[in-house]
Each structure stands twice: as structure tokens, then as C-alpha cells.
């Protein structure tokens, strides 16, 4: 890969993106295993049980998205601050420390899996709390590495130039790193445990991550469509106001049933119902700017994934979240496949898409700042098919899981009152199983999509870059 023209931050970003792609593949692989276990419960039973495959599936996702975000910020840091990164060597060291830690955690998850009910297990094997299963030592490592990242970002902007995007980004990263601490303690009281656990999960995914991708989107639109800085910055502030205005107290929709006071039903219901509003603003913004620029982009795949992000975020996080956020409905849908359906479309639509857009921006520049427009040698069939298959696959899984979720809500929850018998009565019902079969079909479509995506990311622009070097075509 010709990376001579890249700045220090961008070279570090390529490292982060490379690990992110590998973990994305791992996420899909373990997702397929988990999906098979729904249909064939004996599959890997006692060897690699569902609790392990699912843990790796969701943790690989959280970590690859985080790598994608960190990489994206390093990618834009020098351009946005107009100076060289402060303490880049420290950032590089943090990358290797973090990556080694992730590798050790995954190996321990796969080989040791679980441990006795003592503090050692929680510190060194598995914390056993969904999404933040990583043992405590790894938590500390993550905080140290995030602090170094934060230092790189803040010190660089401080040395160079503070822009609107820079300010929002830095404050958001402070919040993101700080909130992680809320999940780093032990308590026997599950109500208090889940109260703070949701600070990490919700305030990351439904607040700080959203603002972070808002920053990346603002920068991405300037980059791919050459939209005015003033316009994207104003939109970014509007999004921050709406996002934090609804999302911070929207946290309350996780406080309906964990032992918390009843007033959370009203607060959580009201504010989380407003959460789609900023996502509408993002769609309007992206579509309006695209129209104004007549869709003329210097990087078609990145631009397409940015648009996929705008709509995916709105439908996945916004619509699918809204559908079951009111307590009157959530009483029946909480903890069913509804959540899985929402989770698939939201994480993909809101986050995977925009990180993939950044992968393409990186590929474009790493191969000599060329245009990735309509004139790609193979007409860009790989990125187009990857885009189509990945979106079709995830949307298909989302609908399939929703059907299973509906069935579960009616039979297990409403009819049978959530007993163990009710749970299994719903799980063995043909409607539920059909949903799971279709999920497997569309999961496989997603898997084909990712093979194409990885192939494309490794090859896109390469032929053209060679021709440019030989003086056959101009950039």
C-alpha cells in the first residue's frame, strides 16, 4: 500500500482500520455460529456454547466500531487541526497495547470461557455483564489507551486550530471516556448494577457515539461533497442539542423494569420517544447537501455509505427504537427478539455504515488521493454489490427477528405470562422458528457482503493507482 502521502495520524488510522476490519469479520463469523445454535441447539454444545459465541459476536462489534471511530478521528485530526499530532508515538504505543489486550481477551473468552464465582474470574476471565464482559484488567487498559487518545486529540487541537467540529469532538470524547468508568465496579445489588451499566451502554450508544458519528459525518460531507464548513458546523450544533436534549434523559427507557421508581416510566417514555428527532435532522442534512451538490462526489463508495448511514441511523436507531420504547409496549417486548431486531439494524445503520465510509476515504487517500468516481476500471461492481448485500442482509435479519419478536411478545409474554413454559412454548412455535431460519438466510447474505467488502477495500483504486504512477491516467 502506497502510504507515503499520508500524514502521521492517517498512518495510525490505517492500523486501527485494519484491526477493525478483522474484528468486523470475526463479528459476522460468531454471529453465524450463534444463529446456527438457535436452529440446531446441539451445535458446539458444551464446546463453544451460545453464551460464548454471542459474547464474542457483540464484543467484536463494540470493539471494531470503537477502533473505527478512533481511526476516523486520527484520520481527520491533522487536517482539522492543521498541525502535526502531539505525542503521536504515544498514540502508536497505545494502539499496540490496546490491540494486544483485545487479542488476549478474545483468546481467554474462547479457551477459558468462564470461571468460578470469585473476584479472580471477574478480574481476569469474564465480567459476565452484557457488552462489557471484558475482565477488569482490560477495562483499565482501555481507559489508559482512551486517555492517551484523548490527549492526542486535545493537545493537537490546542496546538493547532480549534474548529466547531474539534470542540464538539473533544468534549464528546471526554464524556465517552468518563462514562466508561461507570461500568467499572462490582455490586451485588442488581438494580444498582444495571443502573450504572446502562450509563455505559445507553450513554455511549444513544448519546456520545451518536454525537461522535455526527462529527465524522460533518467532516465526511465536507470531504466527499465539499459542503461549506459553516453549514456542517451549524447542523452539528443542532444535532448535539437535539441528541443530548432527548438522549440523556432517554436513558430512562432502560429504567422501567430494573427496580427503579415509577417516575422513570414517564420520563423515559417521553424523552426516548423524542430520540428519533435528531436522526431526522441528520437525514435532512445529508439529503439536502447531496441535492445541492448534485450528488457530485469524489468518492462514490464513501458517499453511498454516508447516505446509508443517514437512513440506517434513522430507521435502525430511530424508528426501530421508537417502536418499542414506550413502557406500555415495552412491558411485553423487553428482553425478546424485538431488542435483537432493533440492535441489528441500529448498530449497523448508525455505526457500521459510517465507519465503512471512513474505510473508503482512507483507501482513496492511501492509494494516492485519487477520485473513486464513476470511472473505476471494473465500474466499481464490488463496492456496489457489497453495499447492496450488506444492507439487504442486515435489513432481512432485522425483519426476520422482528417477526420472531412479535410472536414471542404475544405467546410468551401476553399469553403465558413470561414463565419458563411460556418462553419455550414461544421458542418452539413455527412462526418463531421461521423467523430464525430467515435470519440465517439473511445472515449468510451479510457474510457474502462482507467478503466482497474486504476484497474491495484491499483492491479498490489499486489498478488506477498503478496507471497514475505510470502516467497513463491523471488523478
Amino acid at each position: 500500500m502506497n502510504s507515503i502521502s499520508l500524514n502521521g495520524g492517517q498512518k495510525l488510522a490505517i492500523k486501527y482500520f485494519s484491526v477493525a476490519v478483522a474484528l468486523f469479520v470475526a463479528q459476522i463469523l460468531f454471529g453465524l455460529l450463534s444463529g446456527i445454535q438457535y436452529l440446531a441447539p446441539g451445535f458446539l454444545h458444551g464446546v463453544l456454547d451460545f453464551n460464548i459465541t454471542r459474547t464474542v459476536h457483540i464484543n467484536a462489534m463494540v470493539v471494531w466500531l470503537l477502533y473505527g471511530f478512533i481511526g476516523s478521528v486520527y484520520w481527520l485530526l491533522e487536517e482539522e487541526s492543521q498541525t502535526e499530532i502531539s505525542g503521536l508515538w504515544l498514540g502508536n504505543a497505545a494502539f499496540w497495547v490496546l490491540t494486544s489486550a483485545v487479542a488476549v481477551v478474545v483468546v481467554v473468552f474462547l479457551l477459558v470461557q468462564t470461571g468460578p464465582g470469585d473476584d479472580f474470574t471477574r478480574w481476569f476471565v469474564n465480567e459476565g455483564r452484557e457488552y462489557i464482559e471484558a475482565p477488569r484488567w482490560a477495562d483499565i487498559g482501555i481507559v489508559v489507551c482512551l486517555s492517551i487518545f484523548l490527549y492526542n486529540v486535545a493537545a493537537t487541537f490546542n496546538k493547532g486550530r480549534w474548529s466547531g467540529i474539534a470542540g464538539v469532538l473533544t468534549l464528546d470524547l471526554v464524556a465517552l471516556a468518563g462514562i466508561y468508568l461507570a461500568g467499572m465496579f462490582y455490586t451485588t445489588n442488581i438494580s444498582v448494577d444495571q443502573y450504572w451499566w446502562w450509563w455505559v451502554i445507553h450513554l455511549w450508544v444513544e448519546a456520545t457515539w451518536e454525537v461522535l458519528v455526527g462529527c465524522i459525518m460533518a467532516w465526511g460531507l465536507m470531504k466527499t461533497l465539499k459542503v461549506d464548513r459553516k453549514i456542517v458546523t451549524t447542523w452539528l450544533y443542532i444535532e448535539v442539542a437535539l441528541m443530548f436534549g432527548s438522549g440523556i434523559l432517554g436513558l430512562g427507557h432502560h429504567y422501567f423494569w430494573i427496580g427503579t421508581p415509577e417516575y422513570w416510566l414517564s420520563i423515559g417514555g417521553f424523552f426516548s420517544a423524542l430520540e428519533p428527532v435528531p436522526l431526522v435532522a441528520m437525514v435532512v442534512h445529508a439529503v439536502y447537501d447531496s441535492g445541492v451538490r448534485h450528488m457530485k462526489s469524489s468518492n462514490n463508495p464513501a458517499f453511498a455509505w454516508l447516505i446509508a448511514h443517514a437512513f440506517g441511523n434513522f430507521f435502525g436507531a430511530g424508528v426501530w427504537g421508537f417502536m418499542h420504547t414506550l413502557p406500555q409496549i415495552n412491558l411485553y417486548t423487553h428482553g425478546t427478539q424485538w431488542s435483537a431486531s432493533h440492535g441489528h439494524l441500529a448498530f449497523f445503520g448508525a455505526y457500521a455504515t459510517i465507519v465503512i465510509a471512513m474505510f473508503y476515504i482512507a483507501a482513496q487517500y492511501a492509494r494516492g488521493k485519487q477520485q473513486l468516481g464513476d470511472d473505476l476500471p471494473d465500474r466499481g461492481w464490488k463496492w456496489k454489490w457489497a453495499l447492496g448485500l450488506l444492507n439487504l442482509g442486515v435489513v432481512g435479519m432485522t425483519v426476520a427477528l422482528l417477526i420472531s419478536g412479535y410472536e414471542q411478545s404475544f405467546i410468551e409474554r401476553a399469553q403465558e405470562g413470561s414463565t419458563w413454559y411460556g418462553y419455550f412454548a414461544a421458542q418452539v412455535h413455527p412462526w418463531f422458528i421461521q423467523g430464525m431460519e430467515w435470519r440465517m438466510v439473511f445472515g449468510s447474505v451479510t457474510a457474502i457482503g462482507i467478503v466482497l467488502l474486504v476484497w474491495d477495500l484491499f483492491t479498490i483504486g489499486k489498478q488506477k493507482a498503478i496507471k497514475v504512477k505510470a502516467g497513463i491516467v491523471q488523478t
Partner: protein
Amino acid sequence: MTNVVFWWSSESFWKKTAIWVTAFMFIVLIVLTLDSLPKISVGSEHVPAYSVINHRIGYEFDKTRNIQAPVIGPEAPLFGKKLSEKDAEALVTHGKKVIQGRNCMGCHTLLGNGSYFAPDLTKSWLDPGWGSEGIREELMLDFLLNPTDNARSFGSDRTMPNLHLTEREAKAVIAYLKWMSSIDTNGFPYNFPVIEQEALQ
């Protein structure tokens, strides 16, 4: 095209709005958290003390709230052994650590949160599937010690893998589940039929 920028569409207006809205919402969240935490501490109205495992627990319809709520009945010590507050806390704590250490949330949900591959455990202590009060503890213990052979999957092929719990660990898990069933979850799960047991009053 003129370059008039209205105050409501200016960058500076939205910058200030973003800052004020975020700060305000965050302060409200802090205030609500300070109010909520004492209300969910152990020994509060919603979250009973760990020694509740010495009592019979019910889940009955509350007419004023129009939902089911936990009811704490007369003494019915777990495994016939009444525990002091301190011992009860130690046992329940051990149970929670086993539940985290074996990654139970990787398949089950607790208070509805976790994975959806196995039944919710919120009120599993009260589940009618355990037959009756008299045999419940024994069945739960047998199940946890050998879940594959004592599968309770009601016609499904999905069985819990053997997580090799010791008897001490299994009893601690049961204590934890009993304590958790006494938490007031605002009526979740809805319309739950409780196991046959003696009167609560």
C-alpha cells in the same frame, strides 16, 4: 441569493443552545440519579434486604398500582436455614459472582436484560415450572448441578450446558434468584402466574 442569516439559523445561536441543553439535561439526570439511588439501595422499598431469602415471597396484583408487585410473607428460610443479615448478604453476593463468572447473561436475561437464548430469570424463583413449594429447592439444585440430564426445556431441544457448579455455588445462585424475585420491577413481567405456595399472610 442574499446572505442574510436569521438569528435562529446562525451558528452561534445553535452553539449556545447545544451547550445549554446538554448542561441542563445532564444536571436533571444527576438530580434524578441522586433521588433514585437511595430508592434502589438494598433494604429500600423497591429492593429488599438480602435477608428476605428467609421469607416466603409472592408476586400479587396490586389494585392501587394496577400491576403485580412482590409481597414478602412469613418466614420460610432457604434450604431450611435461617441466615443473619450478614450471612444472607455473603450468600447472595457469592451467587451474583457465580452468575457473572459463568456468564449467565450470555444466554439468559436478568430483569429482562441480557441475551434471549434462554428464559428470563427475574421471577424464576416463583416459576410454576418448579411444581410446588415443597420440591422447588431440590429441583432447582438438581437442575443447576446437572442441567443437561435434568433439562427443563418444555419440548425444546435447547438445553443448558453443564457449567460444573459446585453444590455451594448452586445454592448461592438459588439464593440470588430468590432475592432477585423480591425486587419491585414495576410489574415486569406482566401477568406472571406464581408457583403454588402457602398463603403469604
